[in-house]
């Protein structure tokens, strides 16, 4: 069993290497084939592993440790070791499953692009790093995956490297991620200082020491610090409030990339990290509050921004940020299982929506502005139907998946943190509103598509519709994995060995009622508003709308308080410290030597009389000094 564990990351890696080195010579069909097969292979291996996990007594499967970094003479020895238990087993399935679908989808979507094989190499590389991140048995290996996915997202966002905005967005994504990574790094050092090991599992692993909390006590200050740093790392990766600005710009990359990385997998790594260290978070109530409030505020902010976007992908991007905010609300309120469940369901319907949007854009030959869409329902019927399912799911309308998982979160928020519940409720209302706005502007209403693209609409082929269909089905049935109200708690039992399933809350009925009402009312308002939308009516957009459109002007805020001062500091240190300071020192030395030299050369006036006079005077001075010292001293 432990060897199969190795297969999960290695097969995509081999695919990436093949595509990376000789891909361009293989031709589209073969290179996409290799890529898809390698991800499907990983998916099958993942299934086998998950099977192994559920059958094994301790509910986890571990690989043998291959030595990586070890300094002789010190206890420090960090191996390549993998450990799969129910928590990362579930994520593994999502990653490889949704990954496979998106590989199939992008085989057709990227058709004709000259970097075809390079694209698939990067995609496989991403799956490899994501697998390593999730399955890592120790923190440095997790960090390898952590920064690895950052690298993959950099490469993929900047895939069309001719576009300046694409490479700019890629750089921005990597740097913002890096800020989070540094927080994670410092957290790692603090953990190493506290637990004197970096292994997560095993008898002396950090998590085992955490569980045996009786023998181990961390006074809350340190625990809070570590928890907050971990959350900092998670915020960087999962685009939470301070560090979310990179995700909307990441839409520069190809749409399948957005679907895979910026919806389903990479962004959820932050939540996985928090859930993995849930014991630590539970130790410090302050950390829980911070997580909850950050999540709540991010959700609300992103939702407001989502309402005012005209680019279809931007809407979905802000929606992802907002949903991630909700997941962190769940974590902040102790409902880690609910958070993980929402991760899973969100992966399905958000991937579905992104791929659907991709199909729409593909059909309209790259048009992404919703003001130039409308009335597509009749033209691309299959895409329209599946996107509708996705919209219903995400809007939180029962019985689809979105409703169940969001309801769990709202319930947890309602029980533990009433004000955050308010934020979450408002967010889910806004979510319903902007999702239906997107649906109405794209598929309903009068067609604002210019006639040239209209009459030879590009109908998506089966390789695009099949993944949509599968995701559609999953969006529908996934909700029933964990619907406690209806008595289904398959998912929480699955996670039980790692995260204790939440106790039954008595006011679930009330919360469920409120959320259903909120979702339906918001959807109705949105449908009504955008049914007969024409470009003219949008003209008189209110200042609030513009404020929301620019993501509450966070970009300008960061430009003012972070980017400008740093560039000024760089310029200052280069100019004043480097040019004048350090080299100034050299010039100072030079000029002082010059000054003394000049006075010596002036003393050498060339006139003999001066020389003899100065000799005479010097002689007198010396004589008197010696005489005074000699006689008086008399020593």
């Amino acid at each position, binding site marked *: 069993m432990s060897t199969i564990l190795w297969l999960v990351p290695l097969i995509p890696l081999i695919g990436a290497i093949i595509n990376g080195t000789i891909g361009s010579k293989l031709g589209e069909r073969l290179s996409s084939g290799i890529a898809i097969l390698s991800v499907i292979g990983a998916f099958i291996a993942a299934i086998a592993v998950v099977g192994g996990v559920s059958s094994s007594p301790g509910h986890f499967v571990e690989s043998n440790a291959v030595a990586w970094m070890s300094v002789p003479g010190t206890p420090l020895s960090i191996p390549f070791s993998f450990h799969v238990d129910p928590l990362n087993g579930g994520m593994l399935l999502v990653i490889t499953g949704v990954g496979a679908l998106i590989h199939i989808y992008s085989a057709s979507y990227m058709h004709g692009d000259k970097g075809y094989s390079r694209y698939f190499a990067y995609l496989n590389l991403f799956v490899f790093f994501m697998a390593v991140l999730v399955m890592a048995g120790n923190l440095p290996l997790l960090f390898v995956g952590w920064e690895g996915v950052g690298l993959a997202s950099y490469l993929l966002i900047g895939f069309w490297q001719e576009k300046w905005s694409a490479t700019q967005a890629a750089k921005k994504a990597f740097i913002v991620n890096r800020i989070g990574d540094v927080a994670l790094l410092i957290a790692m050092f603090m953990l190493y200082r506290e637990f004197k090991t970096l292994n997560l599992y095993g008898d002396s692993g950090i998590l085992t020491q955490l569980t045996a909390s009786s023998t181990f006590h961390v006074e809350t200050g340190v625990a809070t610090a570590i928890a907050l740093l971990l959350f900092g790392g998670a915020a960087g990766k999962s685009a939470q409030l301070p560090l979310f600005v990179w995700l909307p710009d990441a839409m520069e990359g190809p749409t399948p990339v957005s679907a895979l990385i910026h919806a389903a997998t990479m962004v959820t790594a932050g939540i996985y990290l928090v859930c993995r260290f849930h014991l630590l978070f539970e130790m410090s109530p302050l950390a829980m509050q911070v997580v909850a409030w950050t999540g709540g505020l991010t959700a609300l902010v992103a939702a407001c921004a989502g309402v005012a976007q005209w680019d279809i992908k931007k809407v979905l991007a802000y929606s992802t940020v907002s949903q991630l905010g909700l997941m962190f609300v769940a974590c902040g309120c102790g409902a880690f299982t609910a958070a993980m469940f929402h991760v899973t369901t969100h992966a399905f319907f958000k991937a579905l929506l992104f791929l659907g949007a991709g199909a729409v854009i593909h059909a309209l030959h790259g048009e992404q502005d919703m003001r130039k869409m409308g009335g597509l329902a009749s033209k691309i019927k299959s895409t329209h139907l599946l996107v509708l399912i996705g919209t219903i799911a995400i809007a939180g309308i029962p019985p689809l998946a979105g409703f169940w998982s969001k309801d769990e979160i709202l319930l947890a928020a309602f029980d533990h943190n009433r004000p955050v519940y308010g934020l979450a409720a408002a967010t889910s209302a806004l979510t319903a509103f902007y999702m239906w706005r997107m649906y109405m502007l794209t598929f309903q209403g009068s067609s604002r598509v210019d006639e040239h693209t209209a009459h030879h609409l590009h109908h998506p082929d089966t390789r695009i519709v099949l993944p949509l269909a599968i995701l559609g089905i999953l969006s529908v049935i996934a909700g029933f994995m964990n619907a406690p109200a209806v008595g289904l708690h398959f998912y929480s039992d699955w996670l039980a060995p790692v995260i204790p399933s939440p106790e039954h809350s008595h006011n679930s009925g009330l919360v469920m009622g409120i959320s259903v009402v909120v979702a339906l009312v918001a959807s109705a308002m949105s449908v009504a508003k955008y049914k007969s939308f024409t470009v003219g009516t949008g003209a008189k957009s209110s200042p609030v709308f513009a404020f929301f459109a620019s993501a509450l002007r966070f970009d300008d805020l960061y430009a003012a308080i972070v980017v400008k001062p740093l560039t000024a500091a760089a310029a200052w240190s280069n100019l004043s410290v480097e040019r004048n300071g350090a080299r100034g020192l050299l010039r100072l030395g030079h000029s002082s030597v010059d000054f003394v030299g000049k006075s010596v*050369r002036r003393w*050498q*006036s*060339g*006139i*003999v*009389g001066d020389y*003899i*006079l100065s000799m*005479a005077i010097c002689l007198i001075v010396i004589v008197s000094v010696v005489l005074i010292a000699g006689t008086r001293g008399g020593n």
Partner: protein
Amino acid sequence: MSIPLNYYIVLSMILFSLGIAGVTTRRNPILIFMSIELMLNAVNLSLIAFGRYLGDAGGQMLTIFVMAVAAAEVSVGLGILIAIFRTKDNVDVDVLNGLKG
């Protein structure tokens, strides 16, 4: 009653410092050289005075050699000075400031 040694020594020191005054203030190289001769003369006086009061011939011996040296210096020195100032109109040592800095 003989004259104490100090008188001679003070006298020679006065003459020596007069010589220095001459050397440092004069602009005409020949006169500078004469002042140097004056200094040498003062030294000879003190040598002989010391020799006399120590009853040792060393002083006088050194004076002989000093005179020989003075003669040699005069011959070479005047040779040099003539070579330079033959063509120059005013005989002034400050003119020689080609080499400086």
